[in-house]
């Protein structure tokens, strides 16, 4: 259930920034979630909806953008996306799509980034 702690951290981050920017209302929040995190975007959204009640976030639209996986092959140097197969989606962390070697680094796909917010504030 670590969506709850992540949702809590996201709400705290957003409210902190909103207050510093004299927001009277938060209209929109954009969050980036990497496809390799162990976070389920739908569960995250549900918990954000619960936690935002009675805060400046109450009426905000939550936008969750999924970040695709990019790997770097330490054998052939290939850097880029991998073929995503939903039935075996972790295969992409195992083999380089170019040379089939398994000596890989994950470049993107592990984020949980509070990207930006849209707020309403006094002129």
């Amino acid at each position: 259930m670590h969506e709850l702690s992540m949702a809590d951290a996201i709400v705290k981050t957003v409210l902190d920034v909103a207050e510093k920017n004299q927001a009277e209302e938060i209209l929109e929040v954009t969050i980036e979630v990497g496809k390799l995190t162990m976070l389920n975007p739908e569960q995250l959204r549900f918990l954000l909806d619960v936690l935002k009640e009675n805060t400046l976030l109450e009426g905000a639209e939550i936008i969750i953008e999924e970040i695709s996986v990019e790997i770097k092959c330490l054998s052939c140097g290939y850097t880029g996306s991998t073929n995503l197969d939903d039935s075996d989606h972790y295969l992409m962390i195992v083999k380089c799509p170019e040379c089939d070697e398994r000596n890989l680094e994950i470049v993107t796909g592990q984020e949980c980034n509070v990207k930006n917010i849209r707020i309403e504030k006094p002129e």
Partner: protein
Amino acid sequence: MHKIADVEIQHDIMVANKKLAQRNQRILDKANVFSVDVLGAIGSGKTSLIELLIKKSDEKIGVIAGDVISKFDAGRFQQYNIPVVGLNTGKECHLDAHLVEHAIEDMPLDEIDTLYIENVGNLICPVDFDLGSHMRMVVISVSEGDDTVEKHPLIFKDADLVVINKIDIADAVGADAEKMVNDAKYLNPDVKIIKSSLKTGEGLNEIIEAIKDFRNNLC
């Protein structure tokens, strides 16, 4: 009058955890303490393995016992008269670098050589949270089923040592321990894999040596 403004935040919670983890490691390095994050499934033998390492190893060991309710495991370690810090995670399914930072504050680092951090029994959530340990040891057992490795690839991809425990009961539970070894090798070709039975003692010396070798190779 009001206006609408877009505010850039770019605060990655994973990166924030990683930075805290790096700070934890610097604190441990300064105190010359080697630390191992002990991950694994519920009931796979994490606590038993740490108990055996305390008994058999010639190192001065401290333990951070993380669990939903930590007093049970912490109590098991305390009987060996070593420094133990219990970490209650409450609702949470994993330790994170922030929790470990506070536990390290309570740990007498000058009295120990090696710190074992027992994570919450879970093969999924702890993957996202680096704690600042030097080594990640994953303990699983045949009784979880021989498809455990292929079902939880990320934790094995990041592991430095994999212990496949309870091999003495593999036949009884119909599990193929070799399949588990091969699956782990497939995911992480360089990882050290040890089959053990902590009940009979099989594999224990090999685990102790593997941890020592890993530490020596860091220096």
